[in-house]
């Protein structure tokens, strides 16, 4: 089966600056690909190249076996000719057209017949549950409703590929969760292949069938979300994904052991030939309190936040922030010394340069 979307050696440079740098990704039809990364990592530029709004400097974009853009030939297929729809972060609703008008216009441009247009407009209005808004104007409806109209407008012409540019970032927290499942429902209902850009790793973990973590224009890691969580290839991925954030402790090799200060944390073999390494500990692998036979440090309590019946505790150890978990609800005075126990071995070992060692 041909990939629905394949990017090979895709790059975009603005002058000397590479916004997108040699990206190679492929996803099958029906996939939900999430591009996640901090702001300025190139994810929006990548999405705009997929939409045909930007031309790649190098490499090519292939949709279903057909080259739509390439560094050599430029824009092979116009935005209109790519079978792709884009939902803008700002929604970009045309203010002078009613909700129905906004949804209908792209169909008019695509030369649908009047009867087909009306049927399709009614259909997508119903799919998004906004039938009663059809005669309103964008300025007269709420942000969440505008979001639905923007999605309805994009899926109107039944594109094979749906592109989303941080679509939930302008919504409040509650609405965001609601729209997240709504989006997943629409993704399934349209059986399109979706590409979704976000800086919110929770969205990436909950929605994606495939995640690409981007950093400085490059793909740090690409794969199913669980793989990325369980086997991060770089410290960037390891610390960017997961809630609460994982800890990275710098250790040095001393007499066949990896030591964090004077504390022995692991066998030196785990770090291969490296003199120094970074150990990854999830928050739930560090427990507040002492346990016999496990390495313990004494840290200065900073803050605590209750999460799902347990408490996430942040403490400082030699100036470094460490996130640990406590059972039940835990309180302490800021500045108070609390013991932290490493109850599990490190879940990964990284070189100082950031890449994973071993396995």
């Amino acid at each position, binding site marked *: 089966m041909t990939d629905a979307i394949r990017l090979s050696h895709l790059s975009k440079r603005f002058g000397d600056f590479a916004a997108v740098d040699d990206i190679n990704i492929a996803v099958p039809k029906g996939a939900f690909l999430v591009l996640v990364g901090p702001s300025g990592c190139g994810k929006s530029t990548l999405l705009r190249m997929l*939409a*045909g709004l930007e031309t790649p400097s190098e490499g090519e974009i292939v949709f279903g076996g057909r080259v739509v853009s390439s560094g050599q030939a430029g824009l092979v297929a116009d*935005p209109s000719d790519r079978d792709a729809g884009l939902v*803008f972060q700002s929604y*970009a609703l045309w203010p002078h057209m*009613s909700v129905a008008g906004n949804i209908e*216009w792209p169909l008019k*441009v695509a030369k649908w017949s009047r009867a087909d247009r009306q049927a399709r407009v009614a259909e997508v209005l119903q799919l998004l549950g906004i039938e009663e808004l059809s005669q309103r*104007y964008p300025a007269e409806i709420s942000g969440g409703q505008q979001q639905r109209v923007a999605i309805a407008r994009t899926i109107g012409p039944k594109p094979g590929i749906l592109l989303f540019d941080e679509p939930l970032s302008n919504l409040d927290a509650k609405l965001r969760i609601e729209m997240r499942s709504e989006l997943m429902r629409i993704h399934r209902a349209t059986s399109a292949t979706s590409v979704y850009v976000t800086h919110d790793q929770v969205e990436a973990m909950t929605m994606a069938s495939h995640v690409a973590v981007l950093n400085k224009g490059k793909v740090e890691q690409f794969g199913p979300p669980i793989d990325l969580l369980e086997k991060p290839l770089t410290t960037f991925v390891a610390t960017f994904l997961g809630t609460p954030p994982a800890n990275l402790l710098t250790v040095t090799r001393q007499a066949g052991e990896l030591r964090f200060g004077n504390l022995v944390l692991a066998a030196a073999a785990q770090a291969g030939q490296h003199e120094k390494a970074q150990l990854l500990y999830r928050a739930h692998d560090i427990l507040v309190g002492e346990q016999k036979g496990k390495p313990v440090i004494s840290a200065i309590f900073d803050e605590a936040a209750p999460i799902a019946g347990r408490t996430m505790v942040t403490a400082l150890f030699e100036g470094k922030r460490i996130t640990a978990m406590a059972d039940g609800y835990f309180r302490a005075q800021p500045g108070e010394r609390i013991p932290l126990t490493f109850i599990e071995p490190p879940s990964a070992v990284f070189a100082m340069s950031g890449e994973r060692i071993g396995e």
Partner: protein
Amino acid sequence: MTAKPVRLAHRLFGASFMAFAFPLRHPRKTLLRADTLLPVALLGLVVLLVVAPLIKILLTTLTPDGIDAWFSVLASSLSLNLWWRPLGNTLLLGAGVATGCILVGGFLAWLVVLTDVPARRTLWFLAALPFMIPSFAAALAWGALFRNSRLGGSVGFFEANGYVIPDWLAWGLVPTLIVLIAHYYSLAFTIISAALSSVGADLVEAAQVAGARRSRIFFGIILPVVTPALIAAASLTFAGAVSNFAAPALLGLPVRLQTLSTRLFGMIETGQTERGFVIALLLIAVSAAFLWFGERLVTGRRNFVTITGKGGRTKRFPLGKWRWPLFCLAVVVSLVTTFIPALVLLASSFATQNGALFSNWTAHFWTGEGGTEMAQGQAGIFRNPVLIEALWTTLKLALSVAAVTMILGLALAHAIARNKGTLLATLLAQISFMPVFIPSIAFAAAYIALFGGPIGPLPPLYGTFALLVIAASAHLLPYAVQSGRSVLGQISADIEESAKLTGAGVLRRMGVIILPLAIRGLFAGALLAFVKIVRDLSLVVLLFTSTSPVLSMMAYRYASEGFLQFANAITVVILAVCLVATMLARRLENRVQKWKES
């Protein structure tokens, strides 16, 4: 004229004016409290400045003499010449100017905002220039180039060099139209370019992704979104052309082309005051009707609130091979409308005859002695004691008006903001916006009606310098309130309150916090008010007397008596003053903005 001005204000001055003039209703304050005394006093002042003259001029035309005047203007054998023909010409000019301005200004705005034309910033600056130049400058320059022998006297450059200039090109409707378009297109440009800039790139890209081609995007998305701005630009340029006095007076009157404003001037000049007042009221009605009509068109549609895109980015279309040709066209437009008129005026003020603009230069018209063969014995303008007086009067007038405008503007803006939601604030905002609807020459007529005779024990103000200051300040009230507001806008309530919390007293807060923040904005606003007054002719043309001569009026007098070089020389002086003041204002404004960013 109740709710309408505010909508227009919305167009002109931005959305916040709405909240400003029509805020949510809060519990009303009693009128007797101490902190409402100032606003009440201000209300009395704006009523005296704006409403009283209008009521007085209306009442004057309701006396027996006034009723006669209404009949003779509207329903007598004279009415064809007094009212219908001037009305026809006025409307023709208005419609023509509005159309021309939308085309020229719209083209430039499109080029500068939506395309990848080279040197965009420069073009932007050039397109905004003509409005800074008085319209009589362009009219005089037209005469220096195209004047033909019909009226005798010296002919223009072209005819002197052997080209025959037909009457229709030398005089009347066509040249007036061209000169007014050259003056007002930059107003249209300013409004349309602001609207185009607010069309977010996302809106355009959404249409692109939907598959629309360029022309479809332009006609289907961009044009409909900026329609309100086009209508606003059309009605404002229409109103501007309708109330303009200088161009039709210089280019139309010699061939008896009358517009309502020249008719109004003629009536008052010849002592037919009541008829003049009637025409003034009719002129106000015509101008306000069109502004109101434009407003109705816009507000009748509920779909025009632009949702701006991410970061205010605009989409620029590549022009391809048209890049340089269109750039050249834009440069030619501004050369023809700004630089060539200025150059022609300058050259003509030195040249002995228009046929040879760049040879045989003489400084006679500037500094020559009187009683010679030259110019029928007239001395150069700098030897003319009246000119020196006029220069000082003009500067004094403009400075006084600038000061009054800024103080009044600050006070009004502050009072309106403080009393938000009360009837008082609404009245203040609405009344101070009213002058926008009143052509300045008609406004001057209203001032003659009110101040032409003694009021109670007070002597008549007509003919005094004070009246010029009062009338000009009153006519600038909308501008004053707007700049007062923008100055106050730079000082948020938080800033003052945080200073208050440190325990600083009122004077200290004023001196250390408010004044430093406001001073540049105040200066910039005052300088623009200054320019508006220096280049004004249509307001002073009726209020001017020999005891209060001003430059623009002298230029007009020289021109209508046929001493064109003198008129041109004075106009060059006016241009220079305006230019210097504008540059200063721009620098100050930029500085304010730069400081705001950092």
